[in-house]
């Protein structure tokens, strides 16, 4: 695609949107900005953190685009916009342990009906969840989590949409890319067909619907 706006023009009001990244690594920052510009409403955002300062996800929240956030780490010093909106009752939050969050997406991507985890047993996050005992050990049944869209940050992309990731920017991105109906990618650089060693492709292009490289006009 030629620009970020065109990549995200398919996102609709009320959609569930996965956003990759952890800290600053692997965050599709320019795609998020383009979503902000769409002035959408009622989005459910699935991501690890609830926004930093007034940028990215925090800006989406501040512009009243988000009705719910599903994440592992909502309360942090830098997530003050989320906190303000949550305390005012203007946004809902579901806290999910980080390993459970990613595995729920993984299940959705792998066509599974859920998984059993010992994580959370005995805690308040287990309330209302089905408990299943296997070989004497208690587990929680966790359900798959599918997205309408995933915003992904990759390193290299080729014309098939094959992706690599750079360092710890990999984080949630490859799993999110498997678990959303439309996968929208912001990449650092585009290479030609055969430009990525097939042995190092992390996300096969079959998952990728649209990609954009800032500063380039390639699709």
């Amino acid at each position, binding site marked *: 695609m030629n620009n970020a706006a065109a990549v995200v023009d398919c996102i609709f009001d009320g959609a569930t949107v996965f956003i990759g990244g*952890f*800290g*600053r*690594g*692997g965050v599709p920052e320019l795609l998020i900005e383009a979503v902000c510009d769409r002035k959408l409403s009622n989005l459910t955002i699935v991501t690890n953190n609830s926004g930093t300062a007034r940028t990215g996800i925090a800006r989406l929240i501040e512009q009243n685009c988000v009705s719910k956030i599903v994440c*592992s*780490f*909502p*309360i*942090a010093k830098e997530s003050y916009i989320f906190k303000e909106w*949550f305390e005012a009752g203007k946004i809902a*939050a579901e*806290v*999910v*342990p*980080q*390993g*459970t969050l*990613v*595995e729920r997406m*993984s299940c959705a991507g792998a066509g599974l009906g859920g998984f059993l*985890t*010992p*994580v*959370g*047993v*005995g*805690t*308040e*996050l287990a309330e209302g969840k089905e408990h299943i005992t296997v070989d004497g050990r208690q587990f929680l049944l966790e359900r798959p989590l599918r997205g309408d869209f995933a915003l992904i940050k990759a390193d290299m992309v080729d014309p098939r949409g094959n992706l690599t*990731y*750079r*360092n*710890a*920017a*990999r*984080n*949630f*991105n*490859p*799993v999110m890319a498997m678990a959303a109906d439309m996968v929208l990618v912001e990449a650092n650089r585009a290479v030609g067909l055969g430009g990525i060693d097939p042995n190092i492709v*992390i996300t096969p292009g079959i998952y990728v619907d649209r990609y954009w490289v800032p500063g380039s006009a390639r699709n």
Partner: protein
Amino acid sequence: MALTEDTKVQIARRIAAELQDDWVVNVGTGMPTAVLKCVPDERDIIFHSENGIVGMGPEPTDPAQIDTDLQSAGKRPVTLMPGGCFVHHRDSFAIARGGMLDAAILGGYQVAENGDLANWKLPGAKLGSIGGAMDICVGAKRVFIMMTHTTPDGKPKIVRSLNYPLTASRCVTKIFTELAVIAVTAAGLVLETLAPGVSLETVQKLTEPKLILGKGLGLPG
């Protein structure tokens, strides 16, 4: 109470001394990151960070090495040790839950006598930030808690039973504070080490459960 940097480093050094060659060790956010730079050079530890780093090194000393694609769980810039590698989040948590972590070092709000840990949410709060703590505490072979011995207003954080929301039950192996090192055992809490100049009476007064004296203390018991 707030700790000085020197005290944090002392605790971090004490924890680093527990780590054995070839261990895979997860380091959490906040105080535990201090342990990274306290490991003796000759010790070969593989540090894991929940965001997919296997073989994490300390913060870069040269600002030119700072890389936003290479940050710790606490979102601080870190380095990658020679032989280190990256995995995605699902694999990172498979490492954690799957039993690959020989130890994990986390902060704590409260630890109970039976090893129950609270470190993610304040009592009565509507929300807390769990991050990867539940997964890591359930999966790690040893859970080391690095924390202040008391709350800012002087109340014990090592308690008979938690009144903060649980992170994971019976998971804590040892507690490291500015006053002492305390092991959680089937018999109860064993006081292993006193910080220099700290008396047994002081530690006991600031610890709710009765402490069992460890042999290394040169004290009766």
